[in-house]
């Protein structure tokens, strides 16, 4: 079992003929993801790694029944690409593109609510349900099927933790990267709810970072609604205030959004907090053993 993507996922890749789109489509096809279509305006009729390319998403959906879209288009065309998928009836859109204007994402997330479309991202590594579907850029080789659900605002820090879990023989149901931007399509709470409802997920790893208050909201949600063991980590304990730490959303402003505040919220909610990344897999093993 898994959340968001699995063997029934019929994936469409927007921006499939670009450098990143082509490269990662190759890896996804190789992993066994059912990539049914690609879209690049003006390149309809071509094939990328055997996947047919269409000029518009509507055409691609009509031909292939795609039910999930993955976006690699440049930032300035990103909002348009998300809306194109939503209007073609695709219920799940994963946006890898980074440096998308915040006001574009304010408009898009509001529009998606009315259409019932879920977006994950932007500025995220996508997600993977080991053994059935890899949608995005998380390397398949560091994952293995198993009982842990993982949700994170980071990319490579997520790989680090997946690798540590897999090395210890602890597999994953799904790993979800929700992205490092201030305005996200999917938040910690949404993913926590999905993991809590997924019978195969026995423990949840949540990796946050400085900036905003989504970790605090997630902690309150865990205390109220999550019965499964949750293991947490917050990156940026040494980050100075007022400086953006790489991710657009990773900034301590006016004393709020600090790692200390988030860690305290996690601990108050009964979440096991790792002091550094190497401890995460240890804590997961402990909590799974105890559960």
């Amino acid at each position, binding site marked *: 079992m898994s959340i968001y993507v699995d063997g029934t996922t019929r994936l469409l890749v927007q921006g499939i003929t670009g450098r990143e789109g082509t490269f990662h489509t190759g890896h996804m096809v190789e992993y066994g993801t059912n990539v049914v279509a690609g879209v690049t305006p003006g390149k309809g009729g071509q094939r990328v790694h055997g996947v047919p390319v269409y000029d518009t998403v509507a055409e691609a959906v009509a031909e292939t029944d795609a039910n999930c879209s993955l976006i690699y288009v440049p930032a*300035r065309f990103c909002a348009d690409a998300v809306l194109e998928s939503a209007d073609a009836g695709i219920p799940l859109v994963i946006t890898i593109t980074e440096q998308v204007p915040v006001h574009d994402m304010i408009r898009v997330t509001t529009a998606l609510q009315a259409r019932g479309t879920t977006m994950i991202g932007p500025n995220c590594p996508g997600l993977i349900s080991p053994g059935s579907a890899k949608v995005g850029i998380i390397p398949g080789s560091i994952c293995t099927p198993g009982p842990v659900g993982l949700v994170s605002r980071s990319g490579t820090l997520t790989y680090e933790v997946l690798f540590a879990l897999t090395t210890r023989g602890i597999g994953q149901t799904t790993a979800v990267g929700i992205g490092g931007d201030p305005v996200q399509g999917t938040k910690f709470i949404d993913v926590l709810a999905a993991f809590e409802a997924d019978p195969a997920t026995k423990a949840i790893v949540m990796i946050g970072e400085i900036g905003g*208050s989504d970790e605090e909201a997630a902690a309150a949600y865990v205390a109220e609604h999550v019965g499964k063991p949750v293991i947490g980590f917050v990156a940026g304990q040494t980050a100075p205030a007022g400086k953006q730490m*790489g991710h657009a959303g990773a900034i301590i402003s006016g004393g709020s959004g600090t790692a200390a505040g988030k860690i305290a919220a996690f601990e108050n909610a009964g979440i096991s907090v790792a002091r550094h990344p190497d401890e995460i897999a240890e804590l997961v093993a402990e909590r799974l053993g105890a559960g």
Partner: protein
Amino acid sequence: MNLYEYQAKQLFGLHGIPIKEGRVARTAAEARDIASSLGGPVVVKAQVHTGGRGKAGGVKLASGSDEAESIAAKILGMDIKGHRVGQVLVDPAVDIDSEFYLACVLDRGARRILIMASGEGGVDIEQVAAETPERITSVHVDPGLGLQSYQARRLAYGVLHALPDARRPAFAAVLRDFQHVVAQLYETCVEEDATLAEINPLVITTDGQMLALDGKVTIDDSALFRQQELASLRDAGVETGAERQAREAGLSYVDLDGSIGCLVNGAGLAMATMDVIKFFGGEPANFLDIGGGAQADKVAEALRIILADARVNSVLINIFGGITRGDEVARGILAALEQLDTDVPFVVRIEGTNAEEGRAILADAAMNTATTLAEGAQLAIRLADERKQGQSQEVVA
């Protein structure tokens, strides 16, 4: 990207928000000329990207051009919370009746722009929010519909009803002007791709005019491709040399005070690497994210920036390959070392895509390697301490 007060107010002016016609000066003589062309008393205001200017002596009233010149001479070059004052705004002095607060801010949780208004102007709004939240009125704007008239009215009446009786008549007389300013500030926020557009204080003058007296605007860096004019306002002076060099090379870098340089791919992992160093008793010298898919030349540039910092006594390189390939990073490290001729020790930890190839390249060069992040951090701390001790011994000898 933060704008200076004078830039923020120019932007407000372009969007129809009333401002004073002051100008910015970089020398005391310029301040004198501006004051004399404005005539009458002026306010000389330090232009820095930090609050608390008034308390630090960076805002002063001058009776005329002579005094404006002498005050500007004192304020220019002043250090306010680590920011050197390079320019002052010379604005006509205003007789203030009362002060208000108005801002459009990004509400990350709600994924919308939040407009906040209060009769408590000229003070720290976060303090007001914490102590007397009932004095703040706010509305969220639906981005598809835009700001509605009723929302501007709600803000106006919310502020009015929270005011003490004595202050109500002056504000009641400009209720419509206030609603106009609300609409124009929201327009500024959306059209200029701002994540913060704040007027603090918004004042009513003794002759009943509404005026934006001070302003703060933060532009979304991701939108600068379509805000070319604003992009040109970036003041390279607020970045350190290393930060500017990094930005131009497409690297994400923040200067810190420690002795262990960090080179990492990915922002979250870069922060976590700093945290691990601190956890084991060391101090990171910087945050540096080389980004995804970095090529060898970018890695070499990153190392040049780190090693230019004389406080750096060791460098921890932590790469988890996804898009980034371990062998590319390894080649970048060797390329940089050939040119740099440094005695600063390196600890390299590479995992993920092409990690084995990367490790093999580095093993040939007799580099310190680590398999886990914790191990790498501890080794980097030890090597930094050893180098520091070695240097102090040299000094003693």
